[in-house]
């Protein structure tokens, strides 16, 4: 039976980490994820976990320590945001290429500059091709649930890739909402023990990891990573199903909200989807067939499945909380439209860059997006597909 609580997103992430009880947590504080290692270090001091907490001097060292711990045969976790993730960047690639299933809680924040500490997705988008599995969370509940499922996905023998659980800085990390927690025993049983096949501290099998990998080999090793990312789709589905059987909370690659008969659909990730669902309900009351699609699994990208889900719509808007700065569109938009094209789903689709640097996105903003989509359905006219939402004119 689930336990009713009220927690912030950061608290939810820290509680998940406590229940997972990893061997090593190495982290460096950075807004807005600071509270996660802060709460966790309290659990360590109070003897509530067996974890070795490494208070490192930078995020580069945080990820390096996680790599060392995971390679040694332990379970390692960390948390960071924005420029912290930027400083980890070199080691982010090392972690995934050495196939170390490290789990990170990424509390999304704008990457400077100019300096901004508020929420957007530019930090996550900067590592979207680094070989990490990326799960996005609408609220504290999903941040908690995604973390409970993380190790089962990341450590699976057909996957063995690191995984990050994203949630929106401040918007969910610092707001307290109701949440259903699972018991320590249930989490312990569900997550299970980590038994790596090969690890550095195994005195019966001396190994070397991360050797020189020149022209004859690196290509194949990268292709192995790509294969593991494709395998992750099946594993995510299996683990999510098992999680649902235990908790009653259902998770797929994405969540469809009233899309069944929807003419106009808005796609987004993380907290904004709550505002979009609220707007969908308001429009439905007026008889407008609006729907929403929330992407939970961004890497591996469920392109075929999303394209199929959008195939019945008459117009689609994809909201990106990070600008591509590429004269082409945001990352989610370009991924979705290329998947639609490959699946011959030729629904008019536009992109909105929104919420940059924590710019508030209100239901009236979302209403304007749906109004634009209605106009596109009526006229068939897209004009400019690369648009802004909430930008001063």
């Amino acid at each position, binding site marked *: 039976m689930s336990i009713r609580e009220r927690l912030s997103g950061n608290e939810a992430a820290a509680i998940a980490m406590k229940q997972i009880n990893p061997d090593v947590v190495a982290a460096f504080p950075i807004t807005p994820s600071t509270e996660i290692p802060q709460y966790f270090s309290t659990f360590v001091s109070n003897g509530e976990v067996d974890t070795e907490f490494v208070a490192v001097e930078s995020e580069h060292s945080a990820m390096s320590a996680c790599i060392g711990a995971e390679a040694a045969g332990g379970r390692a976790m960390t948390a960071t945001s924005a420029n912290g993730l930027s400083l980890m960047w070199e080691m982010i690639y090392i972690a995934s*290429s*050495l*196939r170390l299933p490290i789990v990170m809680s990424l509390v999304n924040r704008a990457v400077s500059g100019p300096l901004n500490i508020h929420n957007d997705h530019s930090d996550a988008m900067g590592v979207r091709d680094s070989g990490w599995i990326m799960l996005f969370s609408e609220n504290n509940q999903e941040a908690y649930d995604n973390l409970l499922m993380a190790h089962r996905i990341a450590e699976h023998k057909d996957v*063995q890739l690191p995984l990050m659980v994203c949630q929106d800085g401040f918007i969910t990390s610092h707001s307290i909402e109701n949440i259903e927690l699972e018991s320590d025993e249930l989490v312990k049983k569900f997550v299970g023990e980590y038994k790596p096949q*090969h690890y550095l501290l195994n005195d019966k*099998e*001396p*190994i*070397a*990891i*991360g*050797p020189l*990998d020149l022209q*004859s*080999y690196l290509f*194949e*090793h990268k*292709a*192995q990573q790509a*294969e593991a990312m494709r395998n992750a789709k099946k594993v995510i589905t299996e683990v999510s199903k098992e999680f649902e059987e235990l908790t009653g909370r259902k998770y797929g690659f994405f969540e469809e909200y009233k899309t069944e008969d929807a003419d106009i659909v808005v796609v987004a990730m993380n907290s904004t989807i709550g505002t979009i669902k609220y707007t969908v309900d308001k429009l439905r009351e007026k008889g407008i067939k609006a729907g929403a699609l929330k992407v939970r699994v961004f890497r591996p990208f469920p392109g075929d499945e999303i394209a199929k889900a959008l195939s019945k719509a008459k117009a689609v808007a994809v909201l990106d909380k990070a600008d591509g700065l590429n004269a082409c569109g945001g990352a989610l938009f370009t991924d979705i439209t290329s998947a639609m094209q490959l699946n011959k789903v030729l629904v008019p689709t536009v992109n909105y860059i929104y919420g940059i640097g924590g710019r508030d996105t209100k239901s009236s903003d979302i209403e304007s997006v749906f109004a634009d989509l209605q106009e596109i359905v009526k006229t068939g006219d897209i004009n400019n597909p690369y648009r802004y939402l909430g930008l001063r004119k």
Partner: protein
Amino acid sequence: MCEKINNNTPMEDMTMGGTIYEAGNAKNFKTGDWRSVKPVYIPEKCKQCGLCFPVCPDDAIPVNKEQKRENFNYDYCKGCGVCAKVCPFGAIVME
């Protein structure tokens, strides 16, 4: 397992992340072709003083059971010239 992996091995048969599961395999990686100058051993001038082989970074100077040095192992000598520098008798020259 790793010894069988070469530049014809398909990805399915390669180890995950390039991990090497055997110890002491540096000998499989011949680095002698990195050399641009080569040390030449002149046995007539050599007094077997034993100064050269400890300084070789690549273990490219074999020592036999009688504790006597033999000719260079050019499979691994990178031609750094440290041995020639330490030899007091001019028994090693760089060419």
